[in-house]
Structures are given as C-alpha cells and as structure tokens.
C-alpha cells in the first residue's frame, strides 16, 4: 500500500513499532507516554464513533483548543474517516467560531474544554447542520446538559460498539483513502476581507514535509528523536514541522503542558526541529544575553574569552570558508566550556533543523546564534503554495531565503511578484473560486510577495507587493526592506527611504544613533557639541556612506540609494513622527520634511531645515539647522 495519506502513515507506524512511545504529553508536571498502539486505538475508536454518528467522506469536522493528544487524535480520526479537519486558533471568539464552522459546513465540533464549549454554546442557534459538540477536558462540565454536547470517551464507546458490528471497517476505510483527498482546510486571514479556507491534500502535506526533511540530508529523523508541538495546529506550518514528520519518521511528538510553559518544556525535550519567526529568534538572543548578564564572574569571563571565537565561526559559515584547524579546536573547547551550556539553557542541544520565516533576522542575531553552534537557516513558503526555498547547511546566507528547492519552478513577474509552480501548491479556496482564480492561474501560484532571485540563485524576499513603491521609470522598491537593512547597523537608529513616481531614484533620511555614533566619534578624536552638530560632521557622513554602500549591496541596481541625509534631530513619537511602538509614520515625515526632500532631489548639497515643535506648556519653538546632502 502506498503511504499517501495521513491515516495510512499512522497505521504503518502502528504496524512497525506498536509498543514504542509515540506521543508524550506533559500533564500534572510529568511527561506521560502514549505508544503507537494507544494512538492508533484512540484514533480508531474516535473515528468509528464519528462514523456511527453520521460523518461521511468529504465532510468537515472543526477542532478548537490548546494542543493535547486528543486534538491530534481527533484530527487524524476525522481524516481516517475520509473527512476534512478544520483546526481553529485557540483564542478565536464566538463569532469567529461561527464563521469557520458555517463556512466549512462542519458536521462536528470538537472543543477542548469548558472555555471552548461556552463559545460554541453562545452561538449555537446560528449553527445549522452541526450534529454534536464533543469535548475532552471534563473539568467544569458536569452540569452541562445540552443534548448536543457529548464527551470524547462517549464517542469512543460508540466507536467500539461500531467496530463490533462492523469488524474491519476502520482498516477498510483507511485503505480507501487517496493522496489527492483533501485532508485539511487552513484558514488564512488576509489583510482584507474574511479568512479564506485553503484546501490541502494528504499528499500535498506529506510532500511538503518530505521537502523540509530533505534539507536534513544524510541525517534523517528517527524514532529516538523528539519533536515539540508548539506551533498552533491551526497553522499550515504545524503539520509540516510537527505532526507529519512524527508520522513519517516515528520521531516522538511532545506536547507542552501549557502554551505558557513552552520554554521550560523545550529545555526538557531539546527538540530536533524548531521553526520560529525573527521575533522569536531575537527573543532567544536576548534571553541568552540576559542570562550572561546575570551569570557569575567566571562564566562571564569564559564567555568574554570565547565570544570572538564564536564570531569567527559565524563568519566562516556565512562566508562559506574553512575556519582552519586551530580555530576549530578552540571553538570546540569553547563548546565544551560554555556554548553547549548556553544551547542547553534554551533547549537547542539537539536541534538539527532551525528555521526562520521569510522576514530576515538581523545579521548580528544570525551570527550570534550561528557562532554558538545553532545552525539557523531561512526558508520561504506559503500555506497555499507550499515550501519554495530553504538554506542547505553548506550554503547559508543570512539575507536571503535560500536556494530554490528541487521540483519548484520560480518566476518573477514584470510587476516583481514571486510566482511559482510545484506539486506542493494547494487545491484552491473552499467555496471561493474567485479568490482561487486570483492566486492560482495555470498552475502558477501568485504569492502577492515581491522579491527577486540573486546571482547565487537564492530567493530574496522584499515585502508584500502592496507595500512596494514605484519610481518614475517604473522600477519597484521596498521601503521597509531598505529601512530594516539600515537598522541592522548599530550606528543607525532609524531611516526612511524616499522615492515615488515623481522621482528618478531612491534616497534616504537617516537618524544616527546618538550614543553609538558619539562613542565612535570620541574614539576617533572628533569633537562635537550636540546631536545636530554630530549628525552634520563630515566624518559621520563618511561613516554612514559605508552603511549606505552596504545596504546598496543588497539591492538591485536600479533601486539603489543615490543620495542620503543625516537628519539633525531624532524622530520623535511626541511629534507624531513615530508611533508609540517606534514605527515610522511615513506620510507625516514626508510632509514635515517636504522642503528637505525637495532639496535632496535638487542641485544643492546643503539645505536649511526649519522645524517647529511644541513645548510642554504649549509654546511653540523652532530649530533650524543646515543639513548636508551626500551622494552615495
């Protein structure tokens, strides 16, 4: 039998290793084990229970709640009955539950606990066609007597009875399943409109997972490895990074106690695969830094000694050079003394596949983690389009999404949109052919993302297409991409890139980081008085030129920065130039500095800028300064 569906994979694992631990769930403070036999039987009884309650092939079941073994069993049980699983995010509200359930026409709702059941009860009158609401965490549920509620074990009891009456029916229905059957709807919330239900097939999910595991090369997962389920199962990334690798390779699936205990549980498990967004990885970096800050003197000293060696290794990896035997030996000494200990702290002693999403991590963070021996790599993909790129271990460049995977064809359209074709692309949106038509044309998936393929055949992701700006000549550039690259320098606090249909090229207004540039100036013996003075020093202008060159090196020729200025004052949230969370308010800055921007695109190389500001007592004041305009 070809293992082309999720239930077939489950049955296969059960047959080859029935008494080996499959799932470990932390509960009551200890890890409880379930063997493959436990899993298989739980899925079997629940699946047959649903069938006896009337679930037909192709019908949907919705699931909501924090991950527990029961959540996965319920999902696989629906799929085994040839149904389709719709997992919702745990924190959905009542009306959202209503939307997902009615839009997917779910026949059953499986809700973890009282909290989730209450949401369903609040909208029950709006739900047509739902047979039962099944719950598996019984606390607080004793007095609920609505007839549509049913306990999880009650469904399984029905399943056992069904098995007695129809022996062998479970095995039969699994065998009938086909790879091209839809296994899941993954709802994706666009920035506009209602969430759309992306339909994925069994074989699509399995192939995506195989692609990810393929990156591991000659070091595949096995039953001794541990996977930690910490991504929300409502998201396409969970199955391909968690439950399906578990079903494909027999690696144990570990379920954290609570979403809040993930960091602790991760340390205990030391999982082999970790997928995090840049925010999470940067969170880990600051966790490590805080840890070192609070460490004892000896630890601090050792760290200080070995840090340059870690950086050496990071550079070697990024520049794809050999580190040399001596350095290698030193790094391994450092590994024994301190790096391993740090990795242990964050549960990454056994991580073989550490991925980050499309948005790029600050190079310092990337280097920091790489130096400690965490093999961080980027990847790029989409729920609807599957996986597109990934770094292989010998080809890591922090600012790209990696090379295009075998079997995927990538094209950049004239508008600069990334489109691709592969057998991982989804089957369309449920009940929404217009939306499907928009993203899926002749087998090509239109991502709505903007990017390009560089000379090393690595994909570079710029931004969402809708965030792109256009120059007079029609060339597109990504303001946020440029600005985030500037912020990677610790000499730069903020930057805004200017350019539109009335300009021929891109320019930048840069805010220097007063502390760091000030320190640099002191070291160089450059005297200065105020922020304004420091920002307009020629030497500082030259220092920034190097930063502009660095950023330009990561941009296509036609959208490189031609001119830049160093603003004479800091962007300030009190003057509405930034939001309170330090995000640039583009339109306000552009309006406020209109005369400066005109000057940049004019002939001068100096411009007198007057800015008005309001004192706390309401009086208005003015500062004026001469701002130098530099050419890159």
């Amino acid at each position: 039998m070809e293992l082309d569906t999720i239930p077939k994979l489950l049955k296969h694992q059960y047959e080859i290793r029935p008494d080996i631990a499959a799932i470990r769930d932390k509960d009551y403070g200890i890890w409880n084990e379930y063997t493959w036999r436990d899993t298989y039987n739980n899925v079997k009884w629940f699946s047959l229970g649903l069938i006896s309650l009337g679930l037909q092939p192709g019908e949907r079941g919705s699931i909501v709640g924090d991950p527990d073994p029961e959540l996965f069993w319920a999902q696989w049980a629906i799929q085994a009955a040839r149904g389709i699983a719709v997992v919702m995010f745990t924190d959905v509200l009542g009306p959202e539950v209503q939307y997902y359930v009615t839009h997917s026409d779910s026949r059953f709702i499986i809700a973890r606990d009282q909290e989730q059941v209450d949401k369903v009860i609040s909208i029950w009158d709006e739900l047509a066609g739902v047979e039962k609401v099944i719950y598996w965490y019984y606390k607080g549920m004793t007095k609920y007597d609505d007839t549509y509620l049913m306990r999880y074990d009650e469904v399984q009891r029905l399943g056992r009875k069904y098995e007695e009456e129809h022996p062998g029916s479970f095995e039969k229905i699994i065998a009938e399943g086909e790879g091209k059957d839809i296994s899941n709807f993954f709802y994706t919330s666009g920035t506009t409109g209602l969430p759309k239900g992306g339909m994925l097939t069994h074989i699509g999910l399995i192939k995506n997972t195989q692609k990810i595991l393929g990156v591991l090369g000659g070091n595949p997962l096995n039953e001794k490895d541990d996977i930690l389920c910490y991504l929300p199962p409502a998201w396409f990334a969970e199955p391909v990074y968690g439950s399906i690798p578990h079903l494909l390779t027999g690696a144990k699936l570990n379920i954290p106690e609570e979403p809040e205990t993930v960091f602790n549980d991760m340390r205990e498990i030391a999982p082999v695969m970790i997928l995090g967004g840049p925010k999470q990885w940067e969170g880990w970096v600051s966790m490590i830094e805080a840890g070192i800050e609070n460490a004892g003197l000896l630890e601090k000293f050792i760290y200080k000694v070995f840090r340059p060696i870690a950086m050496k290794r990071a550079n070697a990896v990024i520049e794809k050079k050999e580190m040399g035997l001596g350095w290698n030996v030193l790094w391994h000494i450092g590994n024994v003394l301190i790096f391993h200990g740090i990795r242990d702290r964050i549960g990454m002693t056994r991580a073989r596949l550490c991925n980050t999403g499309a948005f790029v991590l600050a190079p310092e963070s990337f280097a920091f983690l790489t130096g400690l021996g965490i093999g961080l790599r980027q990847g790029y993909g989409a729920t609807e389009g599957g996986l597109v790129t990934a770094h292989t271990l010998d080809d890591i460049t922090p600012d790209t999404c990696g090379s295009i995977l075998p079997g995927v064809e990538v094209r950049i359209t004239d508008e600069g949109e990334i489109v691709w074709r592969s057998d991982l692309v989804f089957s369309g949106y449920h009940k929404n052919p217009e939306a499907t038509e928009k993203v899926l044309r002749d087998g090509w998936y239109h991502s709505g993302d903007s990017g390009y393929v560089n000379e090393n055949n690595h994909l570079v992701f710029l931004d969402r297409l809708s965030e792109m700006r256009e120059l007079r000549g029609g060339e597109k550039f990504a303001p946020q991409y440029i600005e985030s690259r500037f912020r990677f320098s610790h000499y730069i606090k903020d930057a805004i890139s200017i350019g539109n249909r009335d300009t021929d090229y891109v320019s930048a207004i840069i805010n220097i980081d007063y502390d760091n540039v000030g320190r640099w100036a002191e070291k160089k013996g450059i005297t200065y008085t105020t922020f304004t003075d420091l920002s307009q020093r020629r030497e500082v202008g030259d220092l920034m030129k190097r930063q502009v060159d660095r950023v330009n090196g990561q941009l296509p020729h036609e959208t490189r920065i031609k001119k830049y200025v160093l603003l004479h004052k800091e962007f300030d949230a009190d003057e509405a130039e930034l939001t309170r969370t330090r995000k640039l308010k583009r339109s306000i800055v552009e309006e406020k500095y209109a005369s400066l921007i005109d000057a940049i695109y004019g002939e001068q190389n100096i411009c007198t800028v007057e800015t008005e500001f309001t004192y706390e007592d309401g009086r208005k004041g003015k500062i004026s300064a001469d701002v130098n305009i530099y050419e890159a």
Partner: protein
Amino acid sequence: MGDGQFLLRTEDITLSFGGVQALSDVNVELKAGDITSLIGPNGAGKSSFLNCLSGFYRPQRGSVYLNGEDITRLPSYKVAEMGIGRTFQGVQLFEGLTVQDNIMAGRHIRMKTGILGAALYFGPSRAEDIRHRKVVEDIIDFLEIKPIRKALVGALPFGMKKKVDMARALALEPKILLLDEPLTGMSRDDKEDMARFIYDLQEEWNMTVLVVEHDMGVVMDISDKVVVLEYGRKIAEGLPEEIRQNEHVIKAYLGKSH
C-alpha cells in the same frame, strides 16, 4: 432543624475587643454543598467572623458546631484538621518557597511519616510523598497555575498569590473552604477565572464554601445564599434575589458607594 443538613452552624457568636463590639449574636448556617456569601460594609465584622470559625479568635459567647460537634474552643490547627480550610485577605504564604512547595506545605497535617522516614525517603514515606504530590498536582491543574509551578511565590503578582493561597487551602482537602476576599486586587480576567473556580469547587468537588467578598456582581452570580452583616449584627439572610430587594440591605450596603 437538625445538624444533618447543616455542615457548619454558629449559635449567638459574640465577640468584642475591649469596648468594641465586633460581633453580636451572629447565627449562620452553612448548608453542605452550598456557596454562601458574607457581605457587609468595612468593619462589619466579616473577617472577625471568619476568624471565629477557623479558631483564630475565641468568641466571648456563642458556639461553632461542625456536624453537630462543638469546635468553638479548639485551636486553629485542630479546626484545620477537622476540615475547615481558609484563605486570607492579605495573602499568607512562604515567599521564599516555590508555588509547589507552598501547596505541599499546606498538606503537612495530612502527612504521616516521621522525620527519619522522610529523611531517608524510602518505602512508605516515598509512596506517601508521591501520593501528596499527586494531590498537589490535581490542585495545580484545577486552578490553572501550571506555568508558575516552580516559580518563587515572592516574585508573583498579587492576583497570582491569591490563587496560590487558595491552592494552599485546598491542599488540606477541606470539607469547608472559607475565602476572605478572594477577588480583591484582581484584574477583570482573573476575577472571572476565580469566580469560575469557586463555582467549579462546588460543582466538581462538592465543596461547601463561605466567601467574604465586595464584588456584588460576582456575589449575586455565584451564591446560593447571602448573609449580610452590619456593625457586627446579622441584618439579613436569604437568596441573592431576596437580598437585592431587601431595603435594609440596600440602605446599609448596596445603595451606598463603598
């Protein structure tokens, strides 16, 4: 009415501190399995009454009966052993211990092994430890404080400490739980959680609960019976809706801002 129906009953409790009359002739009956609320303005004697029940204060006159047995003169640890657990208005916990250890400490009166056995940690004492840990974990699960199991209590926010205090009281496996202002100082979300826990205590564990609380919304929602105190006297008693209508109560408490 016989004591069969009432788990805890007080008869003419009278307590004074010097010239201050804290409680005068207070008669209250807690029915097994009920949530009873005790309300009243500040200084009405609510906490004093709780202290009389749990053996911290000795009333000058009157008696407290637990299942018909007079427990008025018993020391507080005896009262605890007999199944009355309580929490405190200001939290009383070991700040330097973890949450888990604090709850475990709440079980000490249920522990049987001696010092030697515990020190050697084998055979019966090991089995006992495991049994106690299980109860503690049940409580941790029930109050949803798993993420802070190993955290030091001193470092927790006040609302969390309140939960731990309740867990400590539950570790005693009491038949009756006395809660002194369990919702004070809590955020809206925490209050909702706590109200649900109190409700679940009754539903799932069939616990008899006496709550002293100022949050009228919650009191009226969860109580089977409400008792109102004013200047140490019981001025009303009844179902929540009756209390809401009672003019005396409205004048004394509900109508005024407090």
